[in-house]
């Protein structure tokens, strides 16, 4: 790994967060000082725009474009919310990042707040991430004591206060408008868009919601410049490094910072140490449980937003979960769909009732109680479930739709055998 440029995890000390002194010793908060001293908010926004940074929370929306919609100069309260409700199965990179560099997030939020004219920030932390909450609690206390948070940030006229909020623990809170409802203390169901959070977000005020890793990319961009950041990517049109959280049937299931555009084969074979027990690679979720499967034919794909979209999948959060040749992909998909059905908020019919419908179909196939007709019924579902209220059910259809696309023969084998061919 040492030959890869390390931007976010360069100084990572496994098992121990880096506190303020350590963070400062390696140039921490210099970007903040530079920005407050020399850059206008508009210049910071421009630098982020030029950097080509795309949101690391899964959707990959260009951060600079998102900020250009934000009414940074509008009077009245505005909010910056960090989405640290990392609850998608197979995704854990934000936890690794924050347990290593809590101050990087604080600095990133300070810079984003400065750029967007925001005085209040929230970090919405996943229920299970008590370690992250503890690290952030201590780091924000340090920052406050050092005058980096509060009414006069670093002695300037810029004011920013950061509030930490521990989630009560549902996957739907990761959806940004549900998260805002959760922060407001009302039932966390997604909100209708428009109005978008940039117009009416938290407490009815302009709000921008950003992923942890996205915000952590801001200090390096401000310090290193947009061109440097773009140059970190291996593929044209992409930018920066990316945290890859590996899991599944690999020899090494860790989180690595790799250049955007690193080939999947390199991720699997070099960094992941290859498929365990010398077995063959069958498929992977490239970016968390809601991204369509990649198969062995995709091993030479560059892992970046554009390439994966063209291949019919998504980079998502780059939480790569690998499945070996002995895995029943129907069983994997059933397991994933059960997760999504369990975490549905129950607002819209496709998600609340469509996912259980799909589960029942897949159970019949898996248990050998289905005919070919069930495969046809299953095939018809994603198109309609994709018209759900929010992206939860759409995400749930990622694996289902790609199961049909890549593994229909395996489904037919279930029908022919009257049960799962992987269990004998």
């Amino acid at each position: 790994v040492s030959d890869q440029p390390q931007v976010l995890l360069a100084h990572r000390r496994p098992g121990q967060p880096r506190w303020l002194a350590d963070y400062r010793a390696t140039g921490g908060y210099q970007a903040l000082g530079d920005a407050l001293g020399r850059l206008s908010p508009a210049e910071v926004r421009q630098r982020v725009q030029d950097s080509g940074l795309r949101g690391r929370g899964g959707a990959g929306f260009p951060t600079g474009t998102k900020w250009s919609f934000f009414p940074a100069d509008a009077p009245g309260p505005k909010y910056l919310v960090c989405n640290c409700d990392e609850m998608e199965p197979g995704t854990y990179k934000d936890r690794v990042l924050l347990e290593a560099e809590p101050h990087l997030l604080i600095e990133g939020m300070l810079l984003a707040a400065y750029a967007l004219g925001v005085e209040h920030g929230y970090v919405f932390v996943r229920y299970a991430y008590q370690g992250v909450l503890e690290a952030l609690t201590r780091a924000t206390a340090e920052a406050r004591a050092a005058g980096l948070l509060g009414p006069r940030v670093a002695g300037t006229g810029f004011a920013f206060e950061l509030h930490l909020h521990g989630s009560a623990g549902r996957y739907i809170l990761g959806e940004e408008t549900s998260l805002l409802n959760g922060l407001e203390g009302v039932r966390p169901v997604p909100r209708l868009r428009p109005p978008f959070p940039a117009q009416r977000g938290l407490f009815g005020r302009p709000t921008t919601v950003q992923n942890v890793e996205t915000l952590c990319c801001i200090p390096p961009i401000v310090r290193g410049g947009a061109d440097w950041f773009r140059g970190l990517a291996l593929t044209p049109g992409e930018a920066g490094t990316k945290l890859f959280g590996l899991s599944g049937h690999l020899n090494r299931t860790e989180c690595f910072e790799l250049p955007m555009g690193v080939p999947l084969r390199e991720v699997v074979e070099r960094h992941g140490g290859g498929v365990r027990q010398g077995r063959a690679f069958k498929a992977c979720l490239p970016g968390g449980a809601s991204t369509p499967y990649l198969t062995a034919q995709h091993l030479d794909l560059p892992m970046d937003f554009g390439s994966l979209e063209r291949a019919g999948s998504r980079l998502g959060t780059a939480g790569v979960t690998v499945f070996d040749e002995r895995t029943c992909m129907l069983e994997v998909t059933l397991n994933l769909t059960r997760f999504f059905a369990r975490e549905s908020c129950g607002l819209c019919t496709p998600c609340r009732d469509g996912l259980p419908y799909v589960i029942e179909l897949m159970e019949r196939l898996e248990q050998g109680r289905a005919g070919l007709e069930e495969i046809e019924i299953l095939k018809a579902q994603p198109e309609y479930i994709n018209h759900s209220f929010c992206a939860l059910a759409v995400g749930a259809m990622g694996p289902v739709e790609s199961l049909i696309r890549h593994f229909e023969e395996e489904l037919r084998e279930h029908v022919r055998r009257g049960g799962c061919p992987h269990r004998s």
Partner: protein
Amino acid sequence: MPTLVIDDRQVTVAAGTSLLEAAMELGLVVPHYCYHKALGALGACRVCAVEILAGPEQGLRMACLVPAQDGMVVSTAAPRATGMRRAVTEWLMQNHPHDCPVCDEGGECQLQDMTVAGGHSVRRFQGKKRTFHNQDLGPFIEHEMNRCIQCYRCVRTYREHCGGDDFGVLGSRQRVWFGRFQPGRLESPFSGNLVDVCPTGVFTDRTARFKARVWEMEQAPSICPHCALGCATWPWARYREFVRITARENPETNGFFLCDRGRFGGGGVNHPERPRAPRVDGRERAWPEALGLVRERLGGLVRERGPGVVACLGSARASLEASWLLGRLAEMLGTDRVAHEVHPRRDAAARALAAGLGGLARSQRDIRQSDLVVLCGLDPHAEAPMLALAARQAVRQGARAVCIDPRGPRLPFPAGRIAAWPLPWLRALAARGDEGPTGVRAAALAGLADLRAALAAAASPVLLGGADLLGPEGVRALLALARALSRPERPCGAAVALSGPDSFGGGLLAGEPAGEPAGLDALLEGIEAGDVRALVCLESDPLAEHPEPARVEAALARLELLVCLDCAPGRTLARAHAFLPTTVPVEMAGAFVNFEGRLQAFERVFSPGLPIRATGGGDHPPREFRPDTPGDLPRPAWAVLAELQDMPPVLASIRAALAAEDARFASLPALEAGQPGVRLPLEEGAPGTEAAGADSPESGLRLLVTEALFGSEPLSALAEPIQRVALEATPDELGLHPDDAREAGLQVGQPARLECALGQVSLPWRPRPEFARGLVLAARRRGGALEAFVPGLGPIACRLGPAGEGVP
């Protein structure tokens, strides 16, 4: 005004109209569950899918969420759209119990209609259905959660629209569940609307449970008779049995909803003690004989003793036509002794309002659209429940609400609270700033200035009053304030809750009182002096409604002839020499004038008679065949009164005669039921100079007897479900400020003894810290311990002490 094409038909709609609403304008049916006209779009059910084939936005979309735009070409029947609807229906039918044969919603179920219309017939899902436990939600609403399709209309209605907080959505995923935290009666006075908005049978009318299928019932557009607001209703009946009431849409009045008193208060029609046959001298008579006897005796008295010997007493629950005919009968009998309301203070207040409202009148719709609502001595839940809902809609859209009331009434919206008697405030607000605010405590001056500023700044302020607390002086003060606050470019409105469905109409017929005794008091003196020997009571019960029952009792005893026309069992009927049974509004056509001067007609829903269920002896169909209809004798009061004066008992000709005689009612002959009604041309009354009121008690305890939401209003109090709820919701108790209780020596948990001009009573009491000091509140439930305490008197002096000891 975008123009678009839906299913090959062009339509131009108002900007902001959704595709779903645009399709409905064309008469196209697009299935929908979560969308409701009153609640708007939610986008949860995903069944209203349409395909946009061309235009600025294309593809499969939810019709409720996409605003119509110029150039759109929309198909409701494209394969993808119908496929989506089929898929959603199939998903929803996984768990629906398919219990239509035993479901009260069957036949009027949106889910059933849309599912069948979409062609869904085979359930391919083979898993177990998810099931729920149901709750006992009280006597009004039946809960059957297994039928739920999670459209969220119920929570949006109950919580957002109606402001209730004891009902909501619990759980997540496929276990989303709608109900209360624990079983119990739904506390909102608007809970019955769940029945109307639920697109399937989760919430059904418990009072109508298993009584009838929708296609077996008769219905007609009617007007709610249980307060003065004149909300639009659909009463339903089957085989002469009243079954239920649902809300009718009238954008000018109730919008889409009803209060629970209006919805569940109609059962009195079938009250077992309802007198149904004409009686004279204690004997049942056929109509011609009864009418002949009454006519003969009234005529005989007039011949014998001269004009003025007969007095006529009407009521706020009589139709406008009957009230007018009562006055005409008096004229024919040569008397001007007519009152249209028993209660003197209510009569005077209604007349003051009818004479002075003029252009200040505001409808429920106007109130919903107001930006400042000031409630002055109005407990809307009790006196005119839908006013609370109207004010809530204003507040939801950003209006400010202020409540000047010593009771601090419960309101379903946040409001600035001024715990004081309203009259001094009305006068102080009307006074110029440099005049001293007499009667307003110094501590409240900041609030006064703030309210004055708010009233000056508001774009569409409206003052809401309650006639029972304000009385005629207060009504005049309220109207005077609204006039004082009005500028040509920025009028201020006023609305006053009166007691009955035709209080305003009676007030118009009676005219402005000129200081003389009002109501029955105007007639009592004549009776007591022996000048009046006969009284005709039109649907009024003076023994129950007049604040001095003993005086009334004595007066009635002096009469040679008491003629009662009524549709409900009442106390006065027992004294009647002649009784003529009349119909209730659902059994007749007629008209009422509501609190804002809106003339509205209602139609007959069903003909009077004993329900088949009651006459069949348990058999169905009844085995005893007979040529007549048992219990069908009640007739509309206007028909009875017309015949008494030899006029054809034909509504059209009565209305024509009324319109010809009184130009204010010129619109009556053309009036149709089921329409929004007509605001009468109200004269710009010059409100009489108001006497300085004794309405602001300075010291000492003052008893205020009020109506309650359930159990006070005479007709709804006959309905069994209302009686059941009233026992719990309107307990016999006194309320007063805890400091007053301490000063009176009351002990927690020990009853209090109350003495006042109305009588004396020992009752439990409850500390009410939101009350103004000096107020003792008692809500009257019919049949309860406070039966003799007639509301509507304003504050009266009283003494209070621990029960069991002499009052100091």
